[in-house]
């Protein structure tokens, strides 16, 4: 870690302090079980796992989100703004040229009262700190797609299945095609549901998943089969929504058009509108700001509203220089019922410096 990178990290920290953040520190060694429960098995492919004889499996901090949220759950300040700077560690399974240890400087806001203002504050603070670098900002809002799924005229079970896979575009598409009748159900399922006694070849139940759980799922499958397919009009609206990719004002108007036929996304579109106003007030030129409805769907599954990233314009080989978004659902899970809406972002000082050197 060079002094220049540390200086760049200090500069970013100062910028976030100027935006009202309190500097905080967190542990580097984190308990693995909480991270695994939160992010799933994929985090094992990204984080270094080690063991402590007494504490069991630990992970080298893959990002700051979890420890910062946990810290906030104890302090419970409201509203609260934090900044942090420190190393994170990422296993690289495919690309040896990518760093496996680098500094992150972050800015997080926990504020349930004015979410759009908080979104805009985080974006504007990071955008301001990166001023002058050859970067292109992208934005999205997973709240719009989530609202669209909730508004579909189908069973709650189908909506829940789709919502669960918002962050896995391929499985989402496969489910949508099946719930919409575009692909037929697998033959094994048709045969199972037609069978007089589905348990004829079952043998004795082994393992923790009980016969009752299997029966409960058979009921779900029967309900799925009996439900009317999602209409082709609604499927077309979802497709249209996912394809929205324009400068923000045009994206807003495209989404308003979709909202005429899909009123369920109305509140989410109004939120987007309010956020663009809040960004404008903070000096962001939203007329040139890209908006993609699908942006952020392939990240780890915790952003669930506003999402953004800053990528180097002439360096497609570099990872994003900054990323961030809203993660209300994650704080709800960690807060065990007491949700604290939160939005934040991180910047990589090493990449800022690389771009400055090239400029």
């Amino acid at each position, binding site marked *: 870690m060079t002094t220049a990178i540390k200086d760049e990290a200090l500069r970013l920290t100062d910028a976030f302090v100027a935006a009202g953040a309190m500097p905080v520190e967190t542990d580097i060694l984190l308990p693995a079980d909480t991270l*695994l*429960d939160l992010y*799933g*098995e*994929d985090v*094992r*492919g990204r984080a270094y796992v080690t063991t402590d004889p007494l504490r069991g499996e630990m992970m080298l901090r893959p990002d700051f989100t979890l420890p910062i949220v946990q810290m906030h759950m104890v302090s419970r300040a409201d509203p609260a703004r934090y900044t942090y700077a420190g190393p994170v560690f990422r296993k690289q*399974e*495919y690309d040896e040229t990518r760093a496996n240890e680098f500094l992150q400087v972050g800015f997080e806001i926990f504020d349930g009262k004015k979410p759009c203002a908080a979104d805009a504050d985080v974006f504007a603070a990071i955008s301001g700190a990166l001023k002058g670098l050859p970067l292109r900002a992208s934005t999205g809002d997973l709240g719009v797609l989530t609202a669209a799924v909730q508004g579909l005229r189908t069973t709650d079970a189908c909506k829940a*299945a789709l919502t*669960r*896979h918002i962050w*896995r575009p*391929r*499985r*989402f598409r*496969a489910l949508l095609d099946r719930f919409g009748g575009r692909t037929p159900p*697998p033959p*094994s*399922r048709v045969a*199972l549901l037609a069978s007089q006694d*589905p*348990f004829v*070849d*079952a*043998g*004795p*139940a*082994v*393992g*923790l*998943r009980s*016969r009752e*759980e*299997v029966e*409960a*799922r*058979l009921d*779900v*499958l029967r309900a799925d089969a009996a439900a009317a397919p999602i209409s082709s009009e609604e499927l077309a609206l979802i497709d249209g929504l996912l394809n929205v990719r324009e400068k923000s004002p045009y994206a807003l108007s495209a989404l308003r058009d979709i909202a005429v036929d899909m009123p369920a996304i109305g509140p989410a579109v109004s939120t987007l509108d309010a956020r663009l106003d809040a960004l404008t007030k903070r000096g962001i030129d939203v007329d040139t700001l890209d908006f993609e409805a699908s942006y952020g769907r392939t990240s780890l*599954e915790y952003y669930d509203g506003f999402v953004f990233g800053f990528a180097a314009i002439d360096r497609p080989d570099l990872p994003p220089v900054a990323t961030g978004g809203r993660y209300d659902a994650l704080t709800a899970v960690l807060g065990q019922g007491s949700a604290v809406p939160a939005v934040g972002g991180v910047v990589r000082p090493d990449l800022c410096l690389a771009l400055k050197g090239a400029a």
Partner: protein
Amino acid sequence: MMLKLGVPSKGRLMEKTFSWFGDRGVTLRKAGSEREYSGAVDGIEGIELVLLSAGEIPRELAAGRIHLGVTGSDLVREKLANWDVRVTEVALMGFGGADLIIAVPQSWVDVDTLDDLDAAAAAFRAKHGFRMRIATKYHRLVREFLRENGVADYQLVDSQGATEGVVKNETAEAIADITSTGETLRANGLKIISDGLIHPSQATLFCGRKADWNDSQRATFKALQSRLGV
């Protein structure tokens, strides 16, 4: 410098490797007593036989400490990140065939596809408060396969042997393991997910890409390739 060929040091995999080479006019044999782990090669000059555990051959190839190696294609893919830039397949040897698959209890009549597995995992997590456990020793292959196929709400638990028994013992709900006939799976009340074939494995002759080869080693490899017809 000799060209180093690593082969499995015991069991059927060793015997079949010896006869595969033998059928092609290259005799591999253990030197000295049956218990000794050193070998000899007859029928071609310039090759040194190294007897190793099949599980260590991928690592030795990648490190360049052996030039050629015979091991299961499953082990190379599991143990080497970016395996195909670190080793090259020289010949599929047609034995040691076994499939890495996902299996669940036969009593799960509602689960036949990965789609079912994913839905069952979601319901399981909601009911039991933890992610559905899949026991395996092939962590990388299974994780990549499930990620590609969009299966969520599972966790991998390590099982280095007798994996078919973990479901009965309630230390996992499903398994991902190697099977050739499926006999052991059935005997333990398990069935294979129909679209859950992760990798069809077989014994394979690999060539490491890292080792610094000199001209005589290259010539030896050419001669070996032409003798083996690969």
